[in-house]
């Protein structure tokens, strides 16, 4: 009798899937593009959180960033829509099926210029979704024009200097009603991964602005969205620890320095304060801190704001638990009696 030696299979997550099942197609973006690192972190986060791939909707607009849903989680439905309109398409999809985990990927041009109208209204509604801005300050596919998130004084390769103030999407999101707002850097694996995992656990609109350098058009001396600039000016306001509900690891910590948030699914978000007295539930303070940092040329990162109590738009609509899109005819078409009643009222 031959002895079977069990070859150790690939590591699986708590729903029994290997990380391979979370991968997407091969990226067609430039080598070294920050967006690819973000796709990797999304894969890691979904894998580590044990999200069922078929339970995810991937949404995007148009631009380099908006291509990236093709590079992660091939087993999930994806909708690459039109420029600046990812919020509307996502809103419709979520209304049709609010039981899904929805990840939207947009860029700084897609969000802060052509899509600004839809972006601000999406933030107001607090629909359950993760909205990621892959922010590099330039338009890549049209070869390097400034976007509306480019910092004052930032310089293009051609020498053109940006003389308009940047739009801070995080500050806007906090002011307008998003319930989880953070900024990260594609080069900070640990911070971005923790933030994404907490985002997956959150119920409500998550806005993550991820600085993601464009190696081709905005990674030179004088750029404020380059790897070098971020390495020098990234000022984390908190260190993010995330303990998933199924995790049994207990971490010792000094409660005085930790801001602990219990998430809807029972997991824990632990924010170790790096900025003195920073309270991530204080809207006004969050916005003021960000504005002050901007004046000092510091790029603050971390979780700026979190609110786990605010009802989502789905709660407000008070819809049934099942997805609206697949309700059967017996529920969606009113009865003959109801119809005859209406006719009688019109006679």
């Amino acid at each position, binding site marked *: 009798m031959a002895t079977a030696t069990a070859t150790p299979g690939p590591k699986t997550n708590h729903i029994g899937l290997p990380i391979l*099942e979370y991968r997407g197609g091969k990226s067609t973006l430039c080598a070294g593009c920050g967006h690819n690192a973000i796709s990797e972190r999304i894969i890691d986060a979904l894998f580590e959180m044990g999200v069922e*791939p*078929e*339970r995810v*909707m991937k*949404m995007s607009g148009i631009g380099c960033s908006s291509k990236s*849903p*093709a590079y992660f989680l*091939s*087993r*999930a*439905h*994806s*909708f*690459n*829509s*039109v420029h600046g*309109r990812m*919020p*509307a*398409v*996502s*809103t*419709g*999809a*979520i*209304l*049709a*099926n609010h*039981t*899904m985990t929805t990840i939207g990927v947009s860029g700084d041009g897609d969000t802060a210029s052509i899509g600004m*109208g*839809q972006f601000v*209204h999406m933030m107001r509604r607090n629909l359950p979704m993760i909205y990621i801005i892959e922010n590099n300050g330039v338009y890549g596919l049209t070869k390097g024009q400034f976007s509306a998130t480019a910092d004052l004084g930032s310089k293009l390769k051609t020498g053109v200097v940006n003389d308009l103030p940047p739009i801070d999407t995080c500050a806007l999101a906090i002011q307008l009603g998003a319930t989880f707002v953070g900024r990260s850097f594609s080069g900070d694996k640990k911070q971005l991964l923790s933030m994404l995992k907490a985002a997956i656990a959150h119920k409500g609109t998550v806005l993550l602005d991820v600085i993601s350098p464009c190696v081709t058009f905005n990674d030179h001396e004088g750029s404020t969205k380059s790897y070098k600039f971020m390495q020098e000016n990234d000022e984390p306001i908190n260190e993010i620890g995330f303990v998933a509900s199924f995790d049994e690891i207990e971490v010792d910590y000094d409660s005085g320095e930790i801001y602990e948030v219990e998430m809807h699914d029972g997991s824990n978000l632990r924010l170790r304060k790096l900025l003195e007295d920073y309270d991530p539930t204080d809207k006004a303070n969050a916005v003021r801190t960000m504005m002050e940092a901007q004046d000092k040329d510091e790029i603050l990162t971390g979780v700026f704001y979190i609110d786990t109590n605010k009802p989502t738009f789905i709660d407000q*609509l*008070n*819809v*049934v*638990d099942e*997805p*609206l*899109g*697949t*309700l059967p*005819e017996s*529920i*969606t*078409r*009113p009865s*003959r009696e*109801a*119809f*005859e009643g*209406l*006719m009688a009222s*019109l*006679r």
Partner: protein
Amino acid sequence: MATGDLALGQVESALSTRHRVINDFSINIATVNGSGSQSANSVLLKAIFGMGVPVSGKNLFPSNIAGQPTWFLIRASKDGYLARKREAEILVALNPETARADIAALPTGGVAIHEESLKLDEPRQDVFFYPVPFDKITAAICPEAKLRKLVKNMVYVGVTAQLLAMDLSVVESGLRRQFAKKQKVFDLNFGAVKAGFDYAQQNLTKQDPYFIERMNKTAGKIVIDGNAACGMGAVFAGVTVVAWYPITPSTSVVEATSDLLKKLRVTPEGKATFAVIQAEDELAAIGMVLGAGWAGARSMTATSGPGISLMAEFSGLGYYAEIPGVIVDVQRTGPSTGMPTRTQQSDLLSVAFLSHGDTRHIVLLPGSVKECFEMTMAAFDLAERLQTPVFVLSDLDLGMNNWMSEPFEYPEKPLDRGKVLTAEDLNRLGGFARYRDVDGDGIGWRTLPGTNHPKAAYFTRGTGHTDAAQYTESPEEYVAGMERLARKFNSARALVPAPVLVRGSSQKIGFIAFGSTDCALSESLDQIEKSYGLRADYLRVRAYPFAHEIHDFVTSHERVYVVEQNRDAQLASLLKLDLPADQVVKLRSILLYNGLPVDAESITEEFAIKEGL
């Protein structure tokens, strides 16, 4: 017509006309908008309906909140003609600003009911005047000064009803229905009606020939506006997501939908089986509709011209990525902002080709309130069957005016949710290619997000794609996809509502029309037959792409008049693109597009000129 144009003899003969005109005239109620005259107009209209007389109402209102002139036309027609009549014989002049012009527009022998204190410089001799002290009557019965403006309208209802010899009891029962649960409101309003009625009885001597007499032509019929009918269609089609942005004249489509959903689509636990969202603009509204349609919902928006323009880019995405959605376009007068409260049929071309590139859309063309109901319902089935946006092209006349109609019918056919693969299907098939034409009709199979199968997902995009939904810039793959979309559009010809042969007796001359032009054209064809002894056939087009019967109709006639409410002959242009070259020369156009609901006399006149009659 001014008095001076008439020979004295004609005037006398007009005034001495003693023959009675029964159930065949129009009433023009001239007021100021924001004065609350709408409910009084509706009471009078429903009272005529209640007496069994076919009736229609046309609200000619300004794009304004309050203080601008507004006219409401009520037509009573024993023959059942529901189109606007070009001249109104009876005027209720409650707006001093327009009274002179309104009186000048009356035909000889017309009637003017007006505020007594109104001073007319040169009153016409060929018109019957009935001065009424509306303000005094109102003040006497309504002690509360701020309600008087509203109550005054009910006084004219009473005066008019008495002059037309209508039954006060019919007005009363109509009012009672309108204010079913508000006894005090009923009392106040009926008191005003009664005061007007009594005043007329005691102080006015009937001189004019117009009367309403009981008939039996409205039994079993309903009165509804097209927008409410579209709303009903959506609800009985099982709509689940409605995204919209307010715009005249489509707003009441969503209001009606929303009201019905709240009434009929809430579970015993109080949970909604629908979502209605007011979007930030029309771009977002159509984006939400497509997002929802993609994720499996029956989704809808309603809009008008400017909104349609904003929906262009997304409509192209819907066409190319093949996503269902229903767009109700209640047309108003363009171009640009145009005349927002006036009607037109001028969005046909832009809707048919909405968006850049080679894009074509399914367009349904309701010609009555009943079809507003039926076609909105059908649009959801077609959108899911054909996996594409479907437009329902109504207009302000159909949508915002009250129409008498046969009652609607409860849908007997189950919903058609189109080609959707389930996890079980995928187990059996082992996989699928989203845009592969496996059935030969140009329509692929789709899956919905959340389908529990590792091969269910596909990548939806507006970029060039293969039949497996992969990105491509391959010339062959691109062309194959576009050819398949053309095949799919061709398949739609047999699925959309077929044209209706309204009159067909193999005549030389044919007419083609669509939408709200129908009632005026049918009346005009009667006029043409009566005046010129000439019979013509008439085919009513009900959808784009055109069914083959339309080609046959053109082929079998010597010449075909296309009657439509726009300047550029949009339906005729679309037909010309579709017809064989030798048939194109047969088309002639009658175009009426001044923003007023089209009337029969204008069609008849145009036709007579073109035919040299």
